[in-house]
């Protein structure tokens, strides 16, 4: 099976990210794009989907700097003295995604500007001895 014949499942979307590829699905009937991937087009009810690679370019739609983090981010070493930035990114192809924003000073949220251009940055996070790739973005 080639990459583009893969079923439109969450697992396959996540496997693409593990391989540092941001992929979405596009409805061949109405052109609507989905990231994360969807099998059913909720705009026109079509199942006529195809995998498409995303450019990884976008802009910051909204964000927060989190001082009291999730257990996963606490394990990654973030805390009150080292906050991290959760963000929503509007991709240039249209869809929005959630991801950690790196390459900014999360302890100075005033310096982070909505609308700033971003590019994808796959984050290799070590947890319990295993490396995991998470979707991230950084200033372009």
């Amino acid at each position, binding site marked *: 099976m080639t990459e583009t014949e893969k079923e439109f499942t969450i697992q396959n979307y996540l496997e693409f990210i593990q391989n540092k590829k941001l992929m979405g699905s596009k409805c061949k009937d109405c052109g609507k794009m989905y990231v994360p991937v969807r099998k059913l087009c909720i705009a026109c009810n079509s199942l006529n989907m195809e995998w498409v690679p995303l450019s990884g370019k976008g802009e910051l739609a909204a964000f927060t700097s989190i001082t*009291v983090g999730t257990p996963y981010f606490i394990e990654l070493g973030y805390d009150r003295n080292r906050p991290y930035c959760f963000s929503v990114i509007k991709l240039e192809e249209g869809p929005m995604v959630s991801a950690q924003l790196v390459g900014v000073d999360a302890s100075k949220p005033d310096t982070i500007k909505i609308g700033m251009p971003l590019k994808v940055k796959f984050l290799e996070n070590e947890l319990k001895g295993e490396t995991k790739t998470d979707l991230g973005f950084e200033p372009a």
Partner: protein
Amino acid sequence: MGKLSKRVAIVGAGMSQFGRLYPLKRNPDLWVDAWIDAVKSVDNGIEPKDVDACYVGNYSSDLFNHQGHLGPQMANLVGLTPKPASRFEGACASSGIALRQAIIAVASGIHDVIAVAGVECMNELPTSLVTDALATASDALFEYPAGATFPGLYATVATAHFHKYGTTSEDLMRIGIKNHENGVENPFAQMQRSIAQMMQRKLKKLEEQGKELPDWKDEFDYLKSASNPMIAYPLRLFDCSLVTDGAACVFIAAEEVAKNYTDTPIWIAGTGQGSAALSIHDRDDLTGFIATREAARQAYEMSGYGPKDIQIAELHDCFTIAELVALEDLGFYEKGKAAQAVKEGETKRDGARPINTSGGLKSKGHPVGATGAAQAVEIFKQMRGRAERNRQVKFEVERALTHNLGGSGATCVVTIYEK
């Protein structure tokens, strides 16, 4: 479509004490306290034999208390066995949904009287795990791995609102200050203290410890200080609602039987429920909640009323930004205009349209699954002129509204009440 087949009323409503009550009070204790308080509120009395079913709103006893299947448990505790008993879940809108489903069931004719329960005992878990349990109401697949916490998602909405409309942290602080001032007047509230009182306490403590006193001119200075730590920028501790144990009980009755219980029932004028994508990144507008707009549209349409007709409202202020956004989504103010109205005091207890006279989730507390029912308790009291202490509004309330939001805005129930 969009109409109830018959009129439905609230004939009684009450609540338990809200607070950090575990282990002194657990779900069964809280619920029985709420039931007893609600029974007391029914003017001509009500007995278990009068009640046909028990609808329980609860978000996550599974995670908080390792207990599922609350419907029959709660029903049995108040003598309703073997009548139908079910649990409804929609995150923080759970008992708003239970209330709405009870209204629909009574209007259908299948039941005449339903006891609506809202229960949640959150403090059985330490705060870090409470936050994690609440996070399951957002998207576990794509938001949570990106670091989203529950406050973090509302903070994200806040930055989008700040950016688009020029809203400021001070605008949010005003909402917290107002709701705490109301909570002082609510004997059932978890934090019956104003922010000014908390500031004075802090100053006194520092003085006693012989420490240098900070130069706080007013509550805003206090709220901008390290005494009010950042949780998720721009939301600080006092922008967040509380972790609460509590329960509420509302008796819903059909029009044929309502007058048996009271001469002054509060009628349901409209009910609406909306939904949205679970992840905020899947929504077109990050500065508001489509689920609220849809629920409000249905409730206004059913009632024949519009935003201008609503005299008081209990809004879902799980975070200060949520109250601000609700004021706009419900059509009380145009987008971007609510902050100015709050600044001018319109939402205060003596303002043009008082909001959260109960103290809101911020000060009264937020036992998540109990909140929707507890909002109806406050409206029932206010509309019958029986709110405790000094928080009864100074005018006759003919029409009121409750707004109960689930998770990071993916579920919303709006209910409109009339005399």
